[in-house]
């Protein structure tokens, strides 16, 4: 039978661990709520951008922009991988890295030069371990990515794309579907496939709207007055929608990270509780058998004396 004292010690340390994991769970919950609020706020923005685009389409404007067109040349591609700075969040970082590596290999076969950019310490380490050094790495994105910071990166990509230094931009991140479901996904952000915000609302495709409007465009009637002109606004809408798409990726990643951590810590806390139960039982048994043993010894001694 195990030593009762050793068991007690072990139980104490498990209890401490449970305290820590429980606290981490609570912290993750609080952060998740904050991150979620921000993500919802961003949805208001994307919704309105989509609205403007569909209004533009209704004005009979052909939705075309350099950012929307696929490139012939396959020279430069860029893969942006969004991971967390910290671990203890279950399979969150692992699934991203597992998705990113084969995708990177594919891109490298297809394109002449593929740059790799990674956000998050975990991803940098995991990819570095596999011999994939990041060309650019970001460590400053935590649970509340700032738009200004994302905008900086987005503007650099836009500039590179416009000047031909970049032909394709893919982002690997964890997409937030619902609170109980987050999926690691690869999304091509440049060239922009469609302008329907970040929501996968199939009926809100402006491409279709443009076609529909194409028929009605003959009369060219739109109730809106465009200042300065619909084309000029479109020119501005497309980059804005790209920026907000990229921002949304960061927000989704942040929300998903907190959820992953919350879930991981919750199950860790539950496991620790179960372990404590088990240990308590073994400890009680060990203690009881120790006492029984001692009593037997005393009785034996008394009998030997008598």
């Amino acid at each position, binding site marked *: 039978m195990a030593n009762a004292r050793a068991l007690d010690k072990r139980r104490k340390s498990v209890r401490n661990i449970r305290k820590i994991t429980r606290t981490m769970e609570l912290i993750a919950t609080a952060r998740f709520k904050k991150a979620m609020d921000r993500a919802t706020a961003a949805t*208001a*923005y994307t919704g*309105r951008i989509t609205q*403007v685009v569909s209004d533009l389409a209704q004005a009979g404007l052909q939705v075309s922009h350099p950012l929307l067109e696929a490139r012939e040349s396959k020279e430069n591609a860029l893969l942006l991988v969004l991971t967390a700075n910290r671990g203890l969040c279950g399979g969150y970082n692992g699934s991203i890295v597992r998705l990113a590596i084969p995708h990177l290999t594919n891109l490298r076969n297809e394109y002449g030069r593929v740059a790799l950019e990674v956000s998050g310490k975990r991803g940098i380490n995991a990819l570095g371990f596999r011999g994939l050094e990041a060309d650019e790495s970001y460590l400053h994105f935590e649970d509340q990515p700032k738009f200004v910071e994302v905008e900086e990166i987005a503007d650099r990509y836009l500039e590179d794309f416009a000047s031909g230094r970049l032909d394709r931009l893919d982002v690997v991140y964890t997409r937030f579907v619902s609170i109980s479901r987050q999926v690691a996904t690869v999304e091509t952000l440049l060239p922009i496939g469609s302008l329907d915000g970040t929501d996968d609302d199939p009926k809100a495709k402006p491409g279709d709207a443009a076609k529909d409007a194409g028929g009605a465009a003959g009369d060219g009637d739109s*109730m*809106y007055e465009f200042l300065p002109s619909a084309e000029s606004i479109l020119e501005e809408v497309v980059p*804005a929608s790209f*920026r907000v798409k990229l921002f949304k990726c960061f927000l989704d990643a942040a929300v998903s990270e907190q959820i992953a951590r919350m879930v991981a810590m919750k199950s860790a806390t539950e496991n620790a509780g179960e372990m404590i139960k088990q240990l308590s039982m073994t400890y009680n048994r060990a203690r009881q058998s120790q006492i029984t043993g001692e009593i037997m010894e005393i009785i034996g001694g008394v009998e030997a004396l008598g």
Partner: protein
Amino acid sequence: MAQLNCIVVTPEETAVDEQTDFVALPLYDGELGIAPGHSPLIGRLGYGEMRIRSGGNVQRFYVDGGFVQVDENVVSVLTNRAVPAGKLDASEAAELLAAAQKKPATSPELEEIRDKAVVQARAQLHVAKRA
């Protein structure tokens, strides 16, 4: 009297959502005032000061490009940033302007980027000084 519902959204938050009497916005080429009953409009914003008047109260913001959509007495402003004028720091804006002016302008693209940064910083400085 009819009122305008003014909604200002940035990617990070909904900065303003309230009933107002009058909204003045910096368009790409000058200021635009919107009173209740304005005709539907989609416009491109520049950098500068947005004023929202409700009652005798005037709120002032610095807006950083974007769009405005006016429809049925609803003014939706989509912008990258909407900073209350009181929160802008004139000295910081001046530094931004100085930094923007020092940017290289050796090619047409770079020149464009520099000009944009300069205009942006100037507008910030202007709004900050008025606060």
